[in-house]
């Protein structure tokens, strides 16, 4: 097992270095020059050169990259060009918000996918229903779904707050109340895509002979579904879930904006709007690391589930 993890890490680490370097090069050099951002487009060439020398923008990209990594390792991600605040201070409070949003969203989407699509009773009705929901969930854009939910549950019925985020210190109930609609909105999309993948796989596994053999033992339909079909049908989904979580850790841009949630997604949008390179760079790195690490986690889970991989 440890051997497997080490082998995988040896593959993942060079990948992370290469990708973060590419990201760094793209953001610092090709998207526009930091000097023109800070000084304005009509600055004199001398002023630009002076600024580049002062901040080290005239050095080779590799050197700048190593410097950035070195600083990042000590918790220094630079200062925002727009607000002059340290990036770590801006991003720090947004991380737990996005992580919590990701956690609830994935918990709901994964458990709903597995339970609803595996229950052996009322297959035809449930199947038609989830297929319908999946099509809606995938095609309707998140901002539209979010706005619809707000207008129904917050505006018309008045059951839930319209937008905003309350910390745990405001009380668990208030905290969770503000989470319900954004989590529903986000998980609708993930439930839909997960369900499509899972249902297709489930139908295939169901045809396998070992499922018939399990039935022939005299065990219940539920045991057949959850102990024999599910663990096999979930395998292709695991990798997809891993990537989805990784992406979501980078911030749910649209949903956070619609519900005014102070997470990474909203920070990212405002950073892009202001060409705030240090923030964009750090955010990109977080997303990248999230996706890579979640992929690794997915592979580990696959290896744990499937004895044929461990060899």
């Amino acid at each position, binding site marked *: 097992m440890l051997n497997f993890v080490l082998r995988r890490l040896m593959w993942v680490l060079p990948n992370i270095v290469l990708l973060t370097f590419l990201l760094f090069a793209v953001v610092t050099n090709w998207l526009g020059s930091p000097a023109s951002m800070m000084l304005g487009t009509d600055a004199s060439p001398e002023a630009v050169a002076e600024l580049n020398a002062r901040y080290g923008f005239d050095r080779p990209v590799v050197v700048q990259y190593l410097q950035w990594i070195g600083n990042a390792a000590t918790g220094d991600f630079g200062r925002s060009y727009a607000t002059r605040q340290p990036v770590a201070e801006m991003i720090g409070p947004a991380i737990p918000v996005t992580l919590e949003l990701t956690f609830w969203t994935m918990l709901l989407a994964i458990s709903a996918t597995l339970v609803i699509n595996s229950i052996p009773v009322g297959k035809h009705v449930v199947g038609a229903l989830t297929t319908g929901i999946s099509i809606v969930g995938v095609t309707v854009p998140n901002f539209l779904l979010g706005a619809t939910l707000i207008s129904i549950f917050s505006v018309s019925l008045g059951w839930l707050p319209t937008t905003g985020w309350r910390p745990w210190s405001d009380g668990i109930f208030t905290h969770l109340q503000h989470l319900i609609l954004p989590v529903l909105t986000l998980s609708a999309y993930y439930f839909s895509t997960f369900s499509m993948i899972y249902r297709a796989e489930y139908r295939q596994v169901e045809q396998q*002979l*070992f499922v018939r*053999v*399990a*039935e*022939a*033992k*005299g065990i219940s339909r539920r045991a057949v579904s959850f102990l024999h079909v599910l*663990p096999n049908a979930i395998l292709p989904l695991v990798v997809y879930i891993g990537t989805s979580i990784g992406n979501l850790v980078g911030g749910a841009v649209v949903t956070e904006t619609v519900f005014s949630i102070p997470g990474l997604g909203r920070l990212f949008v405002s950073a892009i709007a202001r060409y705030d390179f240090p923030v964009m760079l750090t955010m990109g790195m977080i997303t990248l690391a999230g996706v890579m690490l979640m992929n690794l986690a997915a592979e580990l889970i696959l290896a744990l589930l499937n004895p044929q991989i461990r060899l």
Partner: protein
Amino acid sequence: MTDPKTPPLLQVEDLRVSFGAGAHETRAVDGIGLTVERGRTHGIVGESGSGKSMLSLAIMGLVPDSGRIASGRIRLGGRDLAGLPYREMQAIRGKRIAMIFQEPMTSLNPLYTIGRQLSEAIRAHDRRASAREIRNRAIELLRRVRIPSPERRVDDYPHQMSGGMRQRVMIAMALSCGPELLIADEPTTALDVTVQVQILDLLRELQDETGMAMIFITHDLGVVAAVADEVSVMYAGRVVETGTARNIFEDAQHPYTLGLLGSRPRLDRNLHRLPTIEGAVPPPFDLPPGCRFEPRCAFATPDCAAACPGLRPFGGNHLAACFRAPVKEIAR
């Protein structure tokens, strides 16, 4: 043959398994009768598409959701199982009737050890046994099906075993609750010839030990000759001839049975080509109006295309469904 007061172990009467409805209804099994006595082996022979696998699934109560038992009875020791809901069949499946399948390579769940899969079969019908006890029983079962060092193999995953070994595991699983009837659906077809013989020997030995009855489904007449006491020949969802193994092999009446016997490779005759039956089994949605074998039959008359013959006696329990039978004289 047996005491008329005790019912046979299994008696299938006029069983029909349908798929679809109305004009689109097709019958994979169309009016089959079958009697299996305790401790005996009933061989069922037929080409693929003859409905023999669907018959076994119907007896197990495992007809796919798209199909149903349209009519007929499946009596196990007098109790009718036809149309029992899944939950009620649960107590019978694996306990009183067990089944082994054609493909040992895909019969086991790849994610679990064979010990866990055996334990599941044991626990399904014995909820009070402790984990320790169940594991010991699983090892004992592996020993009974002659798997070497069972206390180690019990923790193996299916991919660590050969096809023959996996089929032994399947047999162990089927025997786990001491079934009265074992349905073996082409259990040796996917195996190497030498392994086939070992598995057949094992099944016969286990049958002697336990006294269970067997339904042995195959398309291989050689295998039937080796194991069966009684034989039914199926064609396009119906039984066309049934009787003792001796009846079928030495005194076949139906042209289809004769054709199957003629298609067997034999060492004592030097033929350039094996005789074959021309054509294929008609699919259940495109059956001829009269006798289902008529389009392929060398002895067919216009009468054969007009009506479907029923089973007629040819001495004792030997029955055949053919207007022209006995055809041996015609052939001569």
